[in-house]
């Protein structure tokens, strides 16, 4: 009703904020308290869901990293900032290991798609964000060895995800072990069957009986 009352009310709010910024403790979260964090000296605790540049994970020693150089992440990367070359053994046969794994952090847009598409849980998004450097061409092109980080690091920054990934990997390992065992058993059975068949053959060479068991014992 009074012309200018709203202005006075608004000015009261700013004045109270001005006064409270001196009287209330910084960071206490009260109305009017300062919210500034003096960054290089003080930091806010990192959130677990924070996602930033990717890194490559390895379990025990840097040689056996989880990455198998399947090139899926490089194909799916929207800005195409990943470059992978498979390692080859002496004979020139490609191995399941990257010889070159480069990520250009000047191009990377922190989308996290590489993490999502990786079928081997080998690449994850890090919490590292202070990568500023004076040289943008060489220093920000991260090579394989710069990207390597341990599983412990992953557990440290993202404990929940780490646990989940580990159980998943353990399950997969178990499944693989079971499968291996099954395959081994099957192979054994096959071998046994073969031996048996050969024996039978040997015996039946005289009896002229066709071998049938060979097909049935095929594991898959």
């Amino acid at each position, binding site marked *: 009703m009074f012309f200018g009352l709203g*202005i006075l009310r*608004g*000015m009261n709010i*700013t004045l109270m*904020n001005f006064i409270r910024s001196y009287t209330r403790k910084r960071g206490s979260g009260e109305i009017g*308290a300062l919210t*500034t964090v003096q960054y290089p000296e003080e930091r806010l605790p990192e959130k677990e869901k924070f996602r930033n540049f990717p890194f490559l994970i390895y379990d025990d020693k840097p040689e056996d990293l989880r990455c198998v150089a399947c090139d899926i992440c490089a194909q799916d990367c929207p800005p195409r900032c990943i470059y992978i070359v498979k390692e080859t053994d002496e004979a020139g046969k490609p191995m399941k290991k990257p010889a070159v794994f480069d990520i250009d952090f000047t191009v990377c847009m922190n989308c996290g798609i590489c993490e999502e598409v990786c079928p081997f849980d080998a690449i994850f998004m890090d919490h590292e964000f202070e990568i500023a450097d004076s040289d943008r061409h060489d220093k920000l092109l991260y090579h394989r060895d710069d990207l390597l980080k341990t599983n412990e690091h992953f557990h440290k920054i993202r404990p929940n995800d780490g646990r989940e990934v580990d159980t998943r990997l353990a399950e997969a390992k178990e499944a693989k072990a079971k499968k291996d065992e099954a395959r081994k058993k099957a192979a054994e059975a096959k071998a046994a069957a073969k031996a048996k068949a050969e024996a039978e053959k040997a015996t039946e060479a005289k009896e002229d009986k066709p071998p049938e068991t060979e097909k049935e014992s095929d594991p898959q």
Partner: protein
Amino acid sequence: MDQMFVNIKAALVGLSDKVFPDWVGVLVSIAVSIVAIALLGPLIMMYLTLIERKVVARMQNRIGPNRVGKYGLLQPLADGVKMLIKEDIVPRNADKVLHLLAPILIVAPALLVFAVLPFGRNMTAVDLNVGILFFAAISSIGTIGIFMAAWGSNNKFSVLGGMRSVAQMISYEIPMVMSVVPVLLAVGSLSTNAIVEAQADWHWFVFTPWGFLGCVIFFLCGVAECNRSPFDLAEAESEIIAGFHTEYSGMKFALFYMAEFMSAFTISGMTTTLFLGGWQGPLLPSWLWFFLKTYGLIFIMLWFRATLPRLRVDQLMALAWKFLLPLSLVNIVATCIWHFLSDEAFFTPAAFLVPLALLVFSYWGLMKLNQPYMPEKRVYPLVD
């Protein structure tokens, strides 16, 4: 203590009188005043930027600059160095001479106004007997500089900002001068010193009804004159980049910045002189009183900036022409009534209440007349 600076100047002049003929003494006296003002202006500007950033930061629950020096006290120096070493860009199709001259032409009036500000007892650089008129005249020269900057840059946004700024400055100059007239009526002189002298013994004009209204109108118009928020349409970042100084960089931009802050100071100082008793005050030295009052007003300016959103162009013009101008005209009448009723005494109830009633009535009437068109609140029966 009160006459510290006056004594220093007298000592300097006395020193030169011993060595040189007497006409050099006059020149020395002039030079001392000029050097003092030429140093004071930029110094005030530098620390006003720091104060502004600090105060606005505190109002927004931030800390503000605190890295360079203790409490960020050296921040203005760092800013100055940054401004000086920046590249100085002149647009290719710009009018080069105008582009170069405009910042100078804007700073010079802002600095000239310092000459008539009474900083303390006997501390007016030039006691012109047309001091207030000098203030009004010199601050109106700034429009030419803004035109030059706007047109010389050869940039659409510059011209838009310049047009807006000049329209605004012309509009607000009228209620500003009109709101000074009551003071001149009461004092009977245009000299700033005489105005301050007339307000001795706590007879500050702001304690009278017409003085209070005049103070508010003058200060608001002053805020608009130096293009400060909420009247900063001329350099509205979100609409026209930076207005008339879009194309300026480096030290030339710093000159615009300097002019803005120095005129903020002179407007506050003039309000202090005209309505808040100038350097009058008990106990403390007179110049300290002047600076205390002036910085109080500057704090209010910063407070405005932290609180109020920018006005629209039509609101801006409507405020000046339809509200402040009639009100300041009524204020002159109220002053005359006060003058005849009070009979040379500063405070008499009749002389206080009759103008107050008149002003409140006209305020209310203008408010009613200026009520903006409000459409009726729409009702959607089917929705509810």
